[in-house]
């Protein structure tokens, strides 16, 4: 057990614990805030594993943008502040499927990689990852930018106010969102 192992275990415990709270909490807003803790711990895991740039992008994009978007959606759909009793389905099949997938994958990984000590790789700094992106992976990178543009346009088109409006009463006020 080296220091890296201890750090991995501690951050992993935080990530998995907060993740469990994300999927079991009865407060919508608390669920989003536990997601922040879980994603932050995963960013710490990236740092321990040596992927610096991925860790900072995780903080910037996930914690900074995605969670904020999710919390905006929680507010815009007028979620109740207190606990909501009707968030969940019955626990039986979901616990079965979730535990089956999680334990199955864990057993698979544990069997494939055993308890073998791997040497640390070179740190994935911005310079090295940048060389990779703009060298080997430049075409997927450009395709990704087109995908982002189309997702942007799609989101704007989807949220037009005239979709789904009933044509009959023209004087009816639309619900402000």
């Amino acid at each position, binding site marked *: 057990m080296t220091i890296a*192992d201890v750090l*991995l*275990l501690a951050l*992993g415990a935080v990530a*998995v614990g907060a*993740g469990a709270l*994300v*999927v079991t909490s009865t407060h*919508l807003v608390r669920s*989003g805030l536990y*997601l922040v803790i*879980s*994603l932050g711990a995963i960013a710490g*895991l*990236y740092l321990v594993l*040596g*992927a610096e740039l*991925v860790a900072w992008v*995780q903080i910037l*994009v*996930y914690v900074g*943008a995605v969670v904020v978007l*999710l919390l905006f*959606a929680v507010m815009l*759909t007028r979620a109740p502040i207190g606990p909501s009793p*009707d*968030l*969940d*389905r019955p626990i039986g099949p*979901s*616990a079965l499927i*979730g*535990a089956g*997938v*999680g*334990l199955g*994958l*864990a057993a*698979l*990984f*544990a069997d494939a*990689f*055993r308890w*073998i000590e*791997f040497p*640390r*790789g070179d740190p*994935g700094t911005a310079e*090295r*990852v940048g*060389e*990779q992106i703009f060298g*080997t992976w430049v075409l997927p*990178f450009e395709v*990704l930018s087109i995908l982002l543009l189309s*997702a942007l346009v799609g*989101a704007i088109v989807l*949220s037009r*106010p005239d979709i789904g409006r009933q044509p009959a009463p023209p004087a009816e006020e639309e*619900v402000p969102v």
Partner: protein
Amino acid sequence: MHVTIAYVIAAALFGLGVYGVVRRRNAILALMAVELMLNAVNLVLVTADVSLRSALRGVPGEAWANPSSQPGSGGVFALFVIVLAAAEVGVGLAIILQFYRMRGAVALDEVPLDQERVSE
């Protein structure tokens, strides 16, 4: 560094995500569970980037095992997945908000998939 720890953490996170997607009725909470699953996959990619390279050292270079002269592709793929997740969340939330505006609910059970339009 024992990479098994990171892999098992990723497997646990993925299982939690699957559990959340199946269990939650609220569409936003289901999206949060999907984010957990995507993060688990990212963790696997980054860990494989660290471990598989040293495991493959000395192996005669196959094209699929070492597509580039420099290592580090796992991190690049993790970045791509993060970008895809951001796009997915944007479009998904647009759909959820539009559904909320039309029906006043975000429960996944109440989405009518088998009819054209429900008169309100």
